[in-house]
Protein backbone atom coordinates (compact mmCIF):
# COMPACT_ATOMS: atom_id res chain seq x y z
CA UNK A 1 0.00 0.00 0.00
CA UNK A 2 2.82 2.37 0.94
CA UNK A 3 4.60 1.86 -2.38
CA UNK A 4 1.34 2.69 -4.18
CA UNK A 5 1.11 6.04 -2.42
CA UNK A 6 4.78 6.78 -3.14
CA UNK A 7 4.21 5.98 -6.81
CA UNK A 8 1.12 8.22 -6.90
CA UNK A 9 3.02 11.07 -5.24
CA UNK A 10 5.96 10.76 -7.64
CA UNK A 11 3.72 10.59 -10.73
CA UNK A 12 1.83 13.72 -9.61
CA UNK A 13 5.16 15.44 -8.98
CA UNK A 14 6.35 14.37 -12.43
CA UNK A 15 3.15 15.71 -13.99
CA UNK A 16 3.50 19.03 -12.13
CA UNK A 17 6.85 19.58 -13.81
CA UNK A 18 4.92 19.80 -17.10
CA UNK A 19 2.67 22.65 -15.93
CA UNK A 20 4.69 25.44 -17.63
CA UNK A 21 4.44 23.54 -20.95
CA UNK A 22 0.70 23.16 -20.41
CA UNK A 23 0.12 26.87 -19.74
CA UNK A 24 2.26 27.89 -22.72
CA UNK A 25 0.31 25.47 -24.92
CA UNK A 26 -3.01 26.73 -23.53
CA UNK A 27 -2.15 30.33 -24.41
CA UNK A 28 -1.19 29.24 -27.95
CA UNK A 29 -4.41 27.27 -28.30
CA UNK A 30 -6.54 30.23 -27.17
CA UNK A 31 -4.77 32.58 -29.60
CA UNK A 32 -5.34 30.08 -32.43
CA UNK A 33 -9.00 29.61 -31.47
CA UNK A 34 -9.46 33.40 -31.38
CA UNK A 35 -7.95 33.84 -34.84
CA UNK A 36 -10.10 31.02 -36.27
CA UNK A 37 -13.26 32.54 -34.70
CA UNK A 38 -12.39 35.99 -36.08
CA UNK A 39 -11.71 34.68 -39.58
CA UNK A 40 -14.86 32.57 -39.67
CA UNK A 41 -17.01 35.48 -38.47
CA UNK A 42 -15.50 37.62 -41.25
CA UNK A 43 -16.25 34.91 -43.78
CA UNK A 44 -19.82 34.69 -42.53
CA UNK A 45 -20.56 38.40 -42.30
CA UNK A 46 -18.32 39.90 -44.96
CA UNK A 47 -16.54 43.13 -44.12
CA UNK A 48 -19.41 44.77 -42.31
CA UNK A 49 -20.99 43.44 -39.19
CA UNK A 50 -24.47 44.94 -38.84
CA UNK A 51 -27.52 43.95 -36.92
CA UNK A 52 -30.20 45.03 -39.44
CA UNK A 53 -30.62 44.30 -43.12
CA UNK A 54 -30.70 47.39 -45.40
CA UNK A 55 -32.90 46.66 -48.43
CA UNK A 56 -33.27 48.92 -51.44
CA UNK A 57 -36.77 49.18 -52.94
CA UNK A 58 -37.41 50.40 -56.44
CA UNK A 59 -41.09 51.25 -57.07
CA UNK A 60 -42.48 52.85 -60.27
CA UNK A 61 -43.05 56.58 -59.56
CA UNK A 62 -46.67 56.63 -60.76
CA UNK A 63 -47.78 53.35 -59.16
CA UNK A 64 -49.29 54.56 -55.88
CA UNK A 65 -50.87 51.20 -55.12
CA UNK A 66 -47.55 49.37 -55.40
CA UNK A 67 -45.89 51.88 -53.06
CA UNK A 68 -48.71 51.42 -50.52
CA UNK A 69 -48.42 47.63 -50.74
CA UNK A 70 -44.66 47.75 -50.13
CA UNK A 71 -45.17 50.16 -47.23
CA UNK A 72 -47.70 47.74 -45.74
CA UNK A 73 -45.24 44.85 -46.09
CA UNK A 74 -42.45 46.90 -44.53
CA UNK A 75 -44.64 47.68 -41.53
CA UNK A 76 -45.25 44.00 -40.76
CA UNK A 77 -43.56 43.12 -37.47
CA UNK A 78 -41.47 40.27 -38.88
CA UNK A 79 -40.10 42.54 -41.63
CA UNK A 80 -39.81 45.73 -39.59
CA UNK A 81 -37.79 44.03 -36.85
CA UNK A 82 -35.11 42.91 -39.30
CA UNK A 83 -35.13 45.13 -42.42
CA UNK A 84 -34.68 48.81 -43.24
CA UNK A 85 -36.46 49.57 -46.54
CA UNK A 86 -34.83 52.42 -48.50
CA UNK A 87 -36.74 53.76 -51.51
CA UNK A 88 -34.69 54.81 -54.57
CA UNK A 89 -34.65 54.31 -58.32
CA UNK A 90 -33.57 51.00 -59.85
CA UNK A 91 -30.10 52.09 -60.99
CA UNK A 92 -29.20 53.58 -57.62
CA UNK A 93 -30.42 50.41 -55.89
CA UNK A 94 -28.22 48.17 -58.02
CA UNK A 95 -25.21 50.50 -57.65
CA UNK A 96 -25.55 50.49 -53.85
CA UNK A 97 -25.92 46.70 -53.92
CA UNK A 98 -22.66 46.42 -55.88
CA UNK A 99 -20.91 48.70 -53.37
CA UNK A 100 -22.05 46.47 -50.52
CA UNK A 101 -24.24 49.14 -48.88
CA UNK A 102 -27.37 47.06 -49.46
CA UNK A 103 -27.88 43.36 -48.82
CA UNK A 104 -30.85 43.04 -51.21
CA UNK A 105 -32.91 45.00 -53.72
CA UNK A 106 -36.65 44.64 -54.37
CA UNK A 107 -37.47 45.64 -57.93
CA UNK A 108 -41.29 46.12 -57.89
CA UNK A 109 -42.79 46.03 -61.42
CA UNK A 110 -45.50 48.24 -62.84
CA UNK A 111 -48.98 46.82 -62.06
CA UNK A 112 -47.76 44.72 -59.15
CA UNK A 113 -50.92 45.06 -57.03
CA UNK A 114 -53.26 44.67 -60.00
CA UNK A 115 -51.39 41.46 -60.84
CA UNK A 116 -52.09 40.08 -57.40
CA UNK A 117 -55.78 41.02 -57.68
CA UNK A 118 -56.32 39.54 -61.14
CA UNK A 119 -54.06 36.54 -60.67
CA UNK A 120 -51.44 37.35 -63.32
CA UNK A 121 -48.87 37.74 -60.50
CA UNK A 122 -46.20 39.85 -62.10
CA UNK A 123 -43.19 38.84 -60.00
CA UNK A 124 -41.07 41.17 -57.88
CA UNK A 125 -37.40 40.78 -58.78
CA UNK A 126 -35.19 40.23 -55.74
CA UNK A 127 -31.47 40.98 -56.16
CA UNK A 128 -29.11 39.59 -53.53
CA UNK A 129 -25.51 40.52 -52.96
CA UNK A 130 -23.01 37.69 -53.48
CA UNK A 131 -21.16 38.61 -50.27
CA UNK A 132 -24.29 39.26 -48.24
CA UNK A 133 -23.60 36.39 -45.84
CA UNK A 134 -26.10 35.65 -43.09
CA UNK A 135 -28.10 38.89 -43.55
CA UNK A 136 -28.74 38.18 -47.24
CA UNK A 137 -29.84 34.64 -46.46
CA UNK A 138 -32.17 35.95 -43.75
CA UNK A 139 -33.81 38.35 -46.21
CA UNK A 140 -34.20 35.57 -48.76
CA UNK A 141 -35.98 33.47 -46.14
CA UNK A 142 -38.33 36.39 -45.38
CA UNK A 143 -39.10 36.94 -49.07
CA UNK A 144 -39.80 33.23 -49.59
CA UNK A 145 -42.09 33.17 -46.53
CA UNK A 146 -43.96 36.26 -47.85
CA UNK A 147 -44.44 34.63 -51.27
CA UNK A 148 -45.76 31.49 -49.59
CA UNK A 149 -48.29 33.50 -47.51
CA UNK A 150 -49.43 35.36 -50.61
CA UNK A 151 -49.91 32.16 -52.61
CA UNK A 152 -51.96 30.64 -49.75
CA UNK A 153 -54.27 33.65 -49.57
CA UNK A 154 -54.68 33.68 -53.35
CA UNK A 155 -55.57 30.00 -53.30
CA UNK A 156 -58.35 30.76 -50.79
CA UNK A 157 -59.76 33.56 -52.98
CA UNK A 158 -59.59 31.43 -56.15
CA UNK A 159 -61.34 28.58 -54.34
CA UNK A 160 -64.23 30.91 -53.37
CA UNK A 161 -64.26 32.31 -56.89
CA UNK A 162 -64.59 28.85 -58.45
CA UNK A 163 -67.28 27.81 -55.96
CA UNK A 164 -69.41 30.87 -56.83
CA UNK A 165 -68.93 30.25 -60.58
CA UNK A 166 -70.08 26.61 -60.12
CA UNK A 167 -73.13 27.72 -58.15
CA UNK A 168 -74.00 30.25 -60.89
CA UNK A 169 -73.46 33.34 -58.73
CA UNK A 170 -71.41 35.10 -61.43
CA UNK A 171 -72.45 38.59 -60.41
CA UNK A 172 -71.47 38.13 -56.81
CA UNK A 173 -67.88 37.00 -57.60
CA UNK A 174 -66.39 40.51 -57.55
CA UNK A 175 -67.99 41.29 -54.22
CA UNK A 176 -66.78 37.94 -52.85
CA UNK A 177 -63.18 38.67 -53.87
CA UNK A 178 -63.32 42.12 -52.27
CA UNK A 179 -64.87 40.69 -49.10
CA UNK A 180 -62.39 37.79 -48.91
CA UNK A 181 -59.43 40.13 -49.43
CA UNK A 182 -60.55 42.31 -46.56
CA UNK A 183 -61.60 39.48 -44.24
CA UNK A 184 -58.51 37.42 -44.97
CA UNK A 185 -56.33 40.32 -43.90
CA UNK A 186 -58.53 41.04 -40.86
CA UNK A 187 -58.43 37.48 -39.67
CA UNK A 188 -54.82 36.68 -40.52
CA UNK A 189 -53.60 39.75 -38.67
CA UNK A 190 -56.14 39.47 -35.85
CA UNK A 191 -55.58 35.79 -35.19
CA UNK A 192 -51.81 36.02 -35.08
CA UNK A 193 -52.06 36.66 -31.38
CA UNK A 194 -53.74 33.29 -30.81
CA UNK A 195 -50.67 31.43 -31.89
CA UNK A 196 -48.11 31.17 -29.10
CA UNK A 197 -44.52 32.11 -29.80
CA UNK A 198 -42.23 29.33 -28.88
CA UNK A 199 -38.52 29.74 -29.55
CA UNK A 200 -36.73 26.47 -30.27
CA UNK A 201 -32.95 26.37 -29.93
CA UNK A 202 -30.89 24.09 -32.12
CA UNK A 203 -28.49 23.94 -29.17
CA UNK A 204 -31.02 22.43 -26.72
CA UNK A 205 -31.27 23.73 -23.15
CA UNK A 206 -28.48 26.26 -23.55
CA UNK A 207 -28.18 29.38 -25.67
CA UNK A 208 -26.02 29.42 -28.79
CA UNK A 209 -23.24 31.37 -27.09
CA UNK A 210 -23.28 29.02 -24.07
CA UNK A 211 -23.25 26.02 -26.41
CA UNK A 212 -20.14 27.21 -28.23
CA UNK A 213 -18.39 28.15 -25.00
CA UNK A 214 -19.00 24.60 -23.72
CA UNK A 215 -17.85 23.13 -27.03
CA UNK A 216 -14.62 25.16 -27.04
CA UNK A 217 -13.98 24.23 -23.39
CA UNK A 218 -14.32 20.50 -24.14
CA UNK A 219 -12.14 20.75 -27.25
CA UNK A 220 -9.55 22.62 -25.20
CA UNK A 221 -9.61 19.88 -22.54
CA UNK A 222 -8.64 17.30 -25.14
CA UNK A 223 -6.18 19.29 -27.25
CA UNK A 224 -4.71 21.02 -24.19
CA UNK A 225 -2.94 17.73 -23.45
CA UNK A 226 -0.75 18.01 -26.57
CA UNK A 227 1.91 20.21 -24.89
CA UNK A 228 2.37 17.53 -22.21
CA UNK A 229 2.75 14.68 -24.70
CA UNK A 230 6.14 13.85 -23.22
CA UNK A 231 4.47 12.90 -19.96
CA UNK A 232 1.79 10.89 -21.75
CA UNK A 233 4.22 8.57 -23.50
CA UNK A 234 3.82 4.99 -22.29
CA UNK A 235 6.51 3.99 -19.76
CA UNK A 236 9.35 1.69 -20.83
CA UNK A 237 8.43 -2.01 -20.75
CA UNK A 238 11.24 -2.73 -18.33
CA UNK A 239 9.96 -0.06 -15.96
CA UNK A 240 6.43 -1.40 -16.11
CA UNK A 241 7.61 -4.94 -15.45
CA UNK A 242 9.76 -3.89 -12.51
CA UNK A 243 6.87 -1.92 -11.07
CA UNK A 244 4.68 -5.00 -11.44
CA UNK A 245 7.16 -6.97 -9.36
CA UNK A 246 6.74 -4.28 -6.72
CA UNK A 247 2.97 -4.82 -6.78
CA UNK A 248 2.16 -1.83 -8.99
CA UNK A 249 0.19 -3.38 -11.84
CA UNK A 250 -0.90 -2.04 -15.22
CA UNK A 251 -4.31 -1.01 -13.88
CA UNK A 252 -2.86 1.11 -11.09
CA UNK A 253 -0.27 2.65 -13.42
CA UNK A 254 -3.01 3.65 -15.91
CA UNK A 255 -5.27 4.97 -13.14
CA UNK A 256 -2.47 7.10 -11.69
CA UNK A 257 -1.72 8.52 -15.14
CA UNK A 258 -5.40 9.41 -15.64
CA UNK A 259 -5.42 11.14 -12.24
CA UNK A 260 -2.21 13.03 -12.98
CA UNK A 261 -3.40 14.22 -16.41
CA UNK A 262 -6.77 15.10 -14.88
CA UNK A 263 -4.93 17.21 -12.30
CA UNK A 264 -2.97 18.96 -15.08
CA UNK A 265 -6.13 19.70 -17.06
CA UNK A 266 -7.84 20.99 -13.90
CA UNK A 267 -4.91 23.30 -13.28
CA UNK A 268 -5.04 24.53 -16.89
CA UNK A 269 -8.79 25.22 -16.85
CA UNK A 270 -9.04 26.64 -13.32
CA UNK A 271 -7.97 30.19 -14.34
CA UNK A 272 -10.52 30.17 -17.19
CA UNK A 273 -13.33 29.00 -14.91
CA UNK A 274 -12.35 31.48 -12.20
CA UNK A 275 -12.42 34.29 -14.76
CA UNK A 276 -15.81 33.09 -16.05
CA UNK A 277 -17.27 33.10 -12.52
CA UNK A 278 -15.67 36.44 -11.69
CA UNK A 279 -17.04 38.14 -14.82
CA UNK A 280 -20.48 36.59 -14.32
CA UNK A 281 -20.32 34.35 -17.40
CA UNK A 282 -20.74 31.29 -15.17
CA UNK A 283 -22.26 30.88 -11.74
CA UNK A 284 -20.03 29.39 -9.07
CA UNK A 285 -21.89 26.39 -7.66
CA UNK A 286 -21.42 22.79 -6.58
CA UNK A 287 -22.72 21.80 -10.03
CA UNK A 288 -19.90 23.73 -11.65
CA UNK A 289 -17.27 22.21 -9.34
CA UNK A 290 -18.53 18.66 -9.91
CA UNK A 291 -18.90 19.11 -13.68
CA UNK A 292 -15.43 20.66 -13.89
CA UNK A 293 -13.74 17.79 -12.04
CA UNK A 294 -15.69 15.11 -13.92
CA UNK A 295 -14.93 16.68 -17.30
CA UNK A 296 -11.21 16.97 -16.52
CA UNK A 297 -10.93 13.34 -15.42
CA UNK A 298 -13.06 12.19 -18.37
CA UNK A 299 -10.92 14.05 -20.89
CA UNK A 300 -7.75 12.77 -19.16
CA UNK A 301 -8.93 9.15 -19.47
CA UNK A 302 -9.55 9.57 -23.21
CA UNK A 303 -6.21 11.30 -23.74
CA UNK A 304 -4.32 8.55 -21.86
CA UNK A 305 -6.11 5.92 -23.97
CA UNK A 306 -5.17 7.68 -27.23
CA UNK A 307 -1.47 7.83 -26.28
CA UNK A 308 -1.49 4.19 -25.13
CA UNK A 309 -2.99 3.20 -28.48
CA UNK A 310 -0.45 5.26 -30.42
CA UNK A 311 2.57 4.17 -28.38
CA UNK A 312 4.78 7.00 -29.64
CA UNK A 313 5.09 10.77 -29.29
CA UNK A 314 4.31 11.80 -32.86
CA UNK A 315 1.71 9.07 -33.26
CA UNK A 316 0.01 10.21 -30.06
CA UNK A 317 -0.13 13.87 -31.13
CA UNK A 318 -1.45 13.00 -34.62
CA UNK A 319 -3.99 10.47 -33.32
CA UNK A 320 -5.20 12.83 -30.58
CA UNK A 321 -5.66 15.73 -32.99
CA UNK A 322 -7.44 13.80 -35.73
CA UNK A 323 -9.54 11.51 -33.54
CA UNK A 324 -10.64 14.30 -31.22
CA UNK A 325 -11.43 16.75 -34.03
CA UNK A 326 -13.42 14.14 -35.97
CA UNK A 327 -15.38 12.87 -32.99
CA UNK A 328 -16.00 16.44 -31.78
CA UNK A 329 -17.60 17.23 -35.15
CA UNK A 330 -19.68 14.02 -35.09
CA UNK A 331 -20.73 14.76 -31.50
CA UNK A 332 -22.19 18.10 -32.65
CA UNK A 333 -19.43 20.26 -31.21
CA UNK A 334 -18.96 22.38 -34.33
CA UNK A 335 -22.50 22.24 -35.72
CA UNK A 336 -25.41 21.43 -33.38
CA UNK A 337 -26.64 17.86 -33.82
CA UNK A 338 -29.96 18.88 -35.41
CA UNK A 339 -28.03 19.94 -38.51
CA UNK A 340 -26.32 16.55 -38.83
CA UNK A 341 -27.75 13.37 -40.44
CA UNK A 342 -29.94 11.11 -38.30
CA UNK A 343 -27.36 8.29 -38.31
CA UNK A 344 -24.76 10.66 -36.85
CA UNK A 345 -27.24 11.91 -34.27
CA UNK A 346 -27.84 8.35 -33.04
CA UNK A 347 -24.12 7.68 -32.71
CA UNK A 348 -23.27 11.06 -31.18
CA UNK A 349 -24.57 10.26 -27.70
CA UNK A 350 -21.76 7.71 -27.23
CA UNK A 351 -18.92 9.98 -28.24
CA UNK A 352 -16.63 11.45 -25.55
CA UNK A 353 -17.20 15.07 -26.61
CA UNK A 354 -21.00 14.67 -26.37
CA UNK A 355 -20.74 13.10 -22.91
CA UNK A 356 -18.39 15.81 -21.62
CA UNK A 357 -20.51 18.60 -23.17
CA UNK A 358 -23.58 17.17 -21.43
CA UNK A 359 -21.60 17.07 -18.17
CA UNK A 360 -20.70 20.77 -18.48
CA UNK A 361 -24.29 21.64 -19.46
CA UNK A 362 -25.32 20.46 -15.98
CA UNK A 363 -23.32 23.35 -14.53
CA UNK A 364 -24.85 25.85 -16.96
CA UNK A 365 -28.46 24.72 -16.48
CA UNK A 366 -27.86 24.10 -12.74
CA UNK A 367 -29.45 20.65 -12.87
CA UNK A 368 -28.00 17.40 -11.62
CA UNK A 369 -28.59 14.49 -13.99
CA UNK A 370 -27.52 11.10 -12.71
CA UNK A 371 -27.72 9.67 -16.20
CA UNK A 372 -25.09 12.11 -17.43
CA UNK A 373 -22.90 11.49 -14.37
CA UNK A 374 -23.09 7.73 -14.97
CA UNK A 375 -22.25 8.20 -18.64
CA UNK A 376 -19.21 10.24 -17.65
CA UNK A 377 -18.23 7.55 -15.15
CA UNK A 378 -18.61 4.89 -17.84
CA UNK A 379 -16.44 6.97 -20.18
CA UNK A 380 -13.68 7.18 -17.54
CA UNK A 381 -13.92 3.47 -16.67
CA UNK A 382 -14.10 2.37 -20.30
CA UNK A 383 -11.14 4.48 -21.39
CA UNK A 384 -9.10 3.22 -18.41
CA UNK A 385 -9.88 -0.42 -19.26
CA UNK A 386 -9.06 0.07 -22.93
CA UNK A 387 -5.80 1.84 -22.04
CA UNK A 388 -4.79 -1.21 -19.99
CA UNK A 389 -5.81 -3.52 -22.84
CA UNK A 390 -3.81 -1.44 -25.33
CA UNK A 391 -0.73 -1.79 -23.14
CA UNK A 392 -1.21 -5.56 -22.90
CA UNK A 393 -1.58 -5.88 -26.68
CA UNK A 394 1.44 -3.65 -27.36
CA UNK A 395 3.65 -5.55 -24.92
Amino acid at each position, binding site marked *: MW*VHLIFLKLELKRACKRLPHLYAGAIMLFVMAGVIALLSSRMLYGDQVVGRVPVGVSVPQKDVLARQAVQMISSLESVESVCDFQYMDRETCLRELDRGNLYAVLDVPEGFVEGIMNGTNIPVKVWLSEDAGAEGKLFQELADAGALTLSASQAGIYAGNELYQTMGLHEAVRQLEADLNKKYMDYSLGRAGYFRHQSVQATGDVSTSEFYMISVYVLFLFLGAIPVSGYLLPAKH*VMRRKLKLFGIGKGYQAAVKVLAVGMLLSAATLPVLTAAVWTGLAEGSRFLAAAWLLSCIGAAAVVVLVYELAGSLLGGIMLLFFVITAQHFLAGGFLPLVFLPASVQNMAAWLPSAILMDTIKMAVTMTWEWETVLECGALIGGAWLLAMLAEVIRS
Partner: protein
Amino acid sequence: MMLVAKDIYKCYHRRDILKGVDLMAKPGECVGVIGSNGCGKTTLLSILAGTVRADRGQIQAGGHDIRRNPKDYARSVAYVPQENPLIEELTVKDNMLLWYKGSRKRMKQDLEEGAAGILGIGPMLGRRVDQLSGGMKKRLSIACALSNHAPVLILDEPGAALDMECKADIRRYLIRYMAQGGAVILTSHETAELSVCTRMCVLRDGKLTPIEKGMSEEQLIKEIRGDVCID
Protein backbone atom coordinates in the same frame (compact mmCIF):
# COMPACT_ATOMS: atom_id res chain seq x y z
CA MET B 1 20.81 -17.93 -1.18
CA MET B 2 21.10 -20.17 -4.19
CA LEU B 3 19.13 -19.48 -7.38
CA VAL B 4 18.27 -22.55 -9.45
CA ALA B 5 16.55 -22.58 -12.83
CA LYS B 6 15.46 -25.96 -14.19
CA ASP B 7 14.30 -26.92 -17.66
CA ILE B 8 13.29 -23.40 -18.78
CA TYR B 9 11.42 -23.14 -22.08
CA LYS B 10 10.37 -19.98 -23.88
CA CYS B 11 8.87 -19.50 -27.32
CA TYR B 12 8.34 -16.13 -29.09
CA HIS B 13 6.28 -15.93 -32.27
CA ARG B 14 6.56 -19.71 -32.85
CA ARG B 15 10.34 -19.52 -32.47
CA ASP B 16 11.87 -21.49 -29.62
CA ILE B 17 14.25 -19.15 -27.83
CA LEU B 18 15.01 -21.30 -24.79
CA LYS B 19 14.84 -25.10 -25.02
CA GLY B 20 15.31 -26.55 -21.58
CA VAL B 21 17.84 -24.24 -19.94
CA ASP B 22 19.34 -25.25 -16.56
CA LEU B 23 21.26 -22.70 -14.51
CA MET B 24 22.46 -22.47 -10.92
CA ALA B 25 24.09 -19.56 -9.07
CA LYS B 26 25.50 -20.24 -5.59
CA PRO B 27 26.31 -17.59 -2.94
CA GLY B 28 29.68 -15.95 -3.60
CA GLU B 29 29.59 -17.04 -7.23
CA CYS B 30 29.33 -15.06 -10.48
CA VAL B 31 27.91 -16.84 -13.51
CA GLY B 32 28.65 -15.22 -16.88
CA VAL B 33 26.30 -15.94 -19.79
CA ILE B 34 27.60 -15.24 -23.28
CA GLY B 35 26.01 -15.70 -26.66
CA SER B 36 25.43 -14.04 -30.02
CA ASN B 37 22.97 -11.14 -30.42
CA GLY B 38 19.38 -12.35 -30.28
CA CYS B 39 20.24 -15.79 -28.87
CA GLY B 40 17.96 -15.22 -25.84
CA LYS B 41 20.29 -13.94 -23.10
CA THR B 42 18.00 -11.05 -22.13
CA THR B 43 14.98 -13.38 -22.24
CA LEU B 44 16.73 -15.82 -19.92
CA LEU B 45 17.70 -13.07 -17.44
CA SER B 46 14.19 -11.55 -17.60
CA ILE B 47 12.72 -14.96 -16.75
CA LEU B 48 15.17 -15.38 -13.86
CA ALA B 49 14.25 -11.89 -12.63
CA GLY B 50 10.52 -12.58 -12.91
CA THR B 51 9.68 -9.84 -15.43
CA VAL B 52 8.93 -12.39 -18.18
CA ARG B 53 7.09 -15.66 -17.61
CA ALA B 54 8.63 -18.91 -18.84
CA ASP B 55 6.47 -21.31 -20.85
CA ARG B 56 7.77 -24.22 -18.80
CA GLY B 57 10.28 -24.87 -16.04
CA GLN B 58 11.04 -24.13 -12.41
CA ILE B 59 12.86 -21.29 -10.68
CA GLN B 60 13.84 -21.78 -7.07
CA ALA B 61 15.41 -19.35 -4.63
CA GLY B 62 16.54 -20.83 -1.32
CA GLY B 63 14.71 -24.05 -2.19
CA HIS B 64 11.30 -22.36 -2.83
CA ASP B 65 9.62 -22.07 -6.19
CA ILE B 66 9.27 -18.31 -6.64
CA ARG B 67 7.50 -18.25 -10.00
CA ARG B 68 3.99 -17.90 -8.65
CA ASN B 69 4.57 -14.99 -6.31
CA PRO B 70 6.01 -11.67 -7.56
CA LYS B 71 6.80 -10.66 -3.98
CA ASP B 72 9.17 -13.64 -3.65
CA TYR B 73 10.99 -12.44 -6.75
CA ALA B 74 11.24 -8.90 -5.39
CA ARG B 75 12.71 -10.27 -2.15
CA SER B 76 15.14 -12.73 -3.74
CA VAL B 77 16.38 -11.14 -6.94
CA ALA B 78 17.78 -7.71 -7.84
CA TYR B 79 17.57 -7.11 -11.58
CA VAL B 80 19.47 -4.48 -13.58
CA PRO B 81 18.16 -4.55 -17.18
CA GLN B 82 20.00 -3.10 -20.18
CA GLU B 83 17.63 -0.13 -20.25
CA ASN B 84 17.72 1.82 -17.00
CA PRO B 85 14.36 1.57 -15.19
CA LEU B 86 14.45 5.16 -13.97
CA ILE B 87 12.02 8.07 -14.07
CA GLU B 88 14.04 10.61 -16.04
CA GLU B 89 12.19 13.80 -15.02
CA LEU B 90 12.64 13.15 -11.30
CA THR B 91 15.66 13.47 -9.05
CA VAL B 92 17.93 10.63 -7.98
CA LYS B 93 16.44 10.86 -4.50
CA ASP B 94 12.87 10.54 -5.81
CA ASN B 95 13.81 7.50 -7.88
CA MET B 96 15.47 5.86 -4.90
CA LEU B 97 12.46 6.62 -2.68
CA LEU B 98 10.24 4.68 -5.08
CA TRP B 99 12.37 1.53 -5.00
CA TYR B 100 12.97 1.91 -1.24
CA LYS B 101 9.16 2.08 -0.91
CA GLY B 102 9.40 5.45 0.80
CA SER B 103 11.68 4.24 3.60
CA ARG B 104 14.09 7.16 4.09
CA LYS B 105 15.75 5.37 7.00
CA ARG B 106 16.82 2.34 4.94
CA MET B 107 17.86 4.60 2.10
CA LYS B 108 20.05 6.68 4.41
CA GLN B 109 21.66 3.52 5.83
CA ASP B 110 22.47 2.24 2.34
CA LEU B 111 23.84 5.62 1.30
CA GLU B 112 26.21 5.49 4.26
CA GLU B 113 27.34 1.88 4.23
CA GLY B 114 25.35 -0.09 1.64
CA ALA B 115 25.41 -0.53 -2.13
CA ALA B 116 24.25 3.05 -2.79
CA GLY B 117 27.16 4.42 -0.78
CA ILE B 118 29.76 2.18 -2.43
CA LEU B 119 28.44 3.08 -5.90
CA GLY B 120 28.80 6.80 -5.07
CA ILE B 121 25.14 7.80 -5.25
CA GLY B 122 25.28 10.22 -2.27
CA PRO B 123 26.71 13.30 -4.06
CA MET B 124 24.16 13.16 -6.88
CA LEU B 125 20.99 12.78 -4.80
CA GLY B 126 19.52 16.18 -5.73
CA ARG B 127 20.25 15.95 -9.47
CA ARG B 128 17.64 15.12 -12.09
CA VAL B 129 18.17 11.72 -13.71
CA ASP B 130 18.00 13.15 -17.25
CA GLN B 131 21.04 15.28 -16.39
CA LEU B 132 23.18 12.29 -15.38
CA SER B 133 25.74 10.52 -17.57
CA GLY B 134 25.19 6.93 -18.74
CA GLY B 135 27.60 5.60 -16.08
CA MET B 136 25.87 7.47 -13.28
CA LYS B 137 22.50 6.17 -14.44
CA LYS B 138 23.83 2.59 -14.46
CA ARG B 139 25.20 2.98 -10.90
CA LEU B 140 21.84 4.39 -9.82
CA SER B 141 20.02 1.47 -11.50
CA ILE B 142 22.18 -1.03 -9.59
CA ALA B 143 21.64 0.85 -6.32
CA CYS B 144 17.87 0.95 -6.90
CA ALA B 145 17.80 -2.75 -7.82
CA LEU B 146 19.65 -3.61 -4.60
CA SER B 147 17.27 -1.54 -2.44
CA ASN B 148 15.68 -4.82 -1.29
CA HIS B 149 19.10 -6.25 -0.25
CA ALA B 150 18.43 -9.24 -2.51
CA PRO B 151 20.92 -12.11 -2.28
CA VAL B 152 20.94 -12.61 -6.07
CA LEU B 153 21.98 -9.85 -8.49
CA ILE B 154 21.19 -10.19 -12.20
CA LEU B 155 22.81 -7.75 -14.63
CA ASP B 156 22.13 -7.53 -18.36
CA GLU B 157 25.23 -6.10 -20.07
CA PRO B 158 26.03 -3.70 -17.24
CA GLY B 159 29.05 -2.16 -18.97
CA ALA B 160 27.40 -1.38 -22.31
CA ALA B 161 28.25 2.19 -23.44
CA LEU B 162 30.08 3.02 -20.20
CA ASP B 163 33.59 4.44 -19.83
CA MET B 164 36.52 2.36 -18.52
CA GLU B 165 36.48 3.94 -15.07
CA CYS B 166 32.80 3.29 -14.55
CA LYS B 167 33.15 -0.33 -15.72
CA ALA B 168 36.00 -0.83 -13.26
CA ASP B 169 33.91 0.67 -10.43
CA ILE B 170 31.04 -1.69 -11.21
CA ARG B 171 33.44 -4.69 -11.36
CA ARG B 172 34.90 -3.71 -7.98
CA TYR B 173 31.40 -3.50 -6.53
CA LEU B 174 30.47 -6.94 -7.91
CA ILE B 175 33.53 -8.51 -6.33
CA ARG B 176 32.58 -6.92 -3.01
CA TYR B 177 28.97 -8.10 -3.40
CA MET B 178 30.13 -11.69 -3.99
CA ALA B 179 32.51 -11.48 -1.05
CA GLN B 180 29.51 -10.63 1.14
CA GLY B 181 27.79 -13.86 0.02
CA GLY B 182 25.78 -12.58 -2.92
CA ALA B 183 25.29 -14.54 -6.15
CA VAL B 184 25.67 -12.72 -9.49
CA ILE B 185 24.43 -13.65 -12.96
CA LEU B 186 25.52 -11.39 -15.79
CA THR B 187 25.63 -11.22 -19.56
CA SER B 188 28.27 -9.33 -21.48
CA HIS B 189 30.14 -9.16 -24.77
CA GLU B 190 33.35 -7.88 -23.15
CA THR B 191 36.09 -10.17 -21.83
CA ALA B 192 37.22 -7.60 -19.22
CA GLU B 193 33.75 -7.50 -17.75
CA LEU B 194 33.55 -11.29 -17.76
CA SER B 195 36.79 -11.48 -15.78
CA VAL B 196 34.82 -11.25 -12.51
CA CYS B 197 32.90 -14.44 -13.38
CA THR B 198 33.68 -17.60 -11.46
CA ARG B 199 31.81 -19.73 -13.99
CA MET B 200 30.94 -19.23 -17.66
CA CYS B 201 28.16 -20.58 -19.90
CA VAL B 202 27.33 -20.08 -23.55
CA LEU B 203 23.73 -19.82 -24.77
CA ARG B 204 23.47 -21.36 -28.23
CA ASP B 205 20.42 -22.77 -30.04
CA GLY B 206 18.31 -22.32 -26.92
CA LYS B 207 20.60 -24.45 -24.76
CA LEU B 208 23.02 -23.31 -22.04
CA THR B 209 26.38 -25.08 -22.09
CA PRO B 210 29.16 -24.61 -19.48
CA ILE B 211 32.51 -23.49 -20.86
CA GLU B 212 35.94 -23.03 -19.38
CA LYS B 213 36.79 -19.87 -17.53
CA GLY B 214 39.65 -17.69 -18.73
CA MET B 215 39.25 -18.31 -22.47
CA SER B 216 40.72 -15.85 -24.93
CA GLU B 217 38.44 -13.64 -27.02
CA GLU B 218 39.00 -15.82 -30.13
CA GLN B 219 38.09 -18.96 -28.25
CA LEU B 220 34.97 -17.29 -26.85
CA ILE B 221 33.94 -16.30 -30.39
CA LYS B 222 34.35 -19.91 -31.52
CA GLU B 223 32.23 -21.09 -28.58
CA ILE B 224 29.51 -18.56 -29.39
CA ARG B 225 29.52 -19.59 -33.08
CA GLY B 226 29.57 -23.29 -32.19
CA ASP B 227 32.88 -24.02 -33.99
CA VAL B 228 34.93 -26.97 -32.72
CA CYS B 229 37.55 -25.84 -30.26
CA ILE B 230 40.89 -27.54 -31.28
CA ASP B 231 42.68 -26.67 -28.06
